[in-house]
């Protein structure tokens, strides 16, 4: 019986923590956003896209570009659905492809490195988003 009570208590505490933390990871707003794609060496594309209230950066990109996402095992897949928890991971945008192990897409919002994933970034009107391939070295 003691175990059941402890389990219920810890589960309740974890659920509260989970929802509070999940809520804090989301950053809200809405208009026109400039998307810049950079392959690490050259600028390969620039686009001005409109978005609606509640659109995440991922929603905006999904509408405009052909995306390659990571599945739960971080393998590339064209099935870019939302993950169970957290943000989807983009491995490729049109022709620019990363492999997650030695390269990834860094997100810069108005030249500031974003610590939130594409699914959790909510841009504001006039923002400039740069998706730049970042090389980490190694294979």
């Amino acid at each position, binding site marked *: 019986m003691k*175990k059941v009570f*402890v*389990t219920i208590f*810890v*589960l309740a505490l*974890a659920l509260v*923590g*989970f929802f509070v*933390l*999940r809520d*804090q*990871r989301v950053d809200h707003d809405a208009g026109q956003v400039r998307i810049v794609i950079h392959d690490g060496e050259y600028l390969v594309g620039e686009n001005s896209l409109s978005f609606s209230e509640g659109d995440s950066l991922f929603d905006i990109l999904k509408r405009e570009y052909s995306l390659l996402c990571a599945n*739960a*095992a*971080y393998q590339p897949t064209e099935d870019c659905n939302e*993950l*169970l*928890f*957290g943000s989807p991971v983009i491995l490729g945008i049109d022709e620019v492809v990363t492999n*997650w*192990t*030695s390269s990834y897409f860094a997100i810069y919002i108005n030249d500031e*490195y974003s*610590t*939130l994933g594409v699914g959790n970034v909510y841009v504001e009107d006039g923002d400039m988003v740069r998706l730049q391939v*970042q090389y*980490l070295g*190694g*294979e």
Partner: protein
Amino acid sequence: METRKMIMLAFAISILFVQEQILVFLPNIQFTVVLLIVYSSVFSKKEMFVIIFVYVFLDSMYYGGLNPFYFIPMLLAWSLIPIVHHGLLKRTRNEYVLAVFALMFGFVYGWMFIPFHMIQTSIMNPIPYLLSDLLFEVIMGTTGFLTVLWMYGPLVRLFSLVGDDHLYHARSIRNSEL
């Protein structure tokens, strides 16, 4: 090392690796923590390091071609289980103590990656990484706590049924109640 013991270690590693792959679609929900704590109760510290090294090696090969930024922190983090269990916790078999240890381990495991992630990304501020990982640490800690609380006892008793007196504590487990 005896053949029988080597086979047992191989089985232990296989179970560890396969369960992780089966549960890969659920982020940070796995039985790795409870299994390693159970193994730590029945195998010696040296055998535990063999299990952990092979498991981390396989895992890193499978996911990222032995990327040192994952391989090293994983190796360090998982090694904490036998180190703390055999050291600070004096090989306790108290399910509540071990469950609290598993809960804290969920957080420590995530923190272990921070310095490596800082080197990898050249972003020297640990706070963003700490905050973004907190959600997954809560999931891992809670899973560790609940799985140890409910599964540690039955699994350790199951090991004692193997009847191998060469196992680190199998004999003492058979002779005592959890």
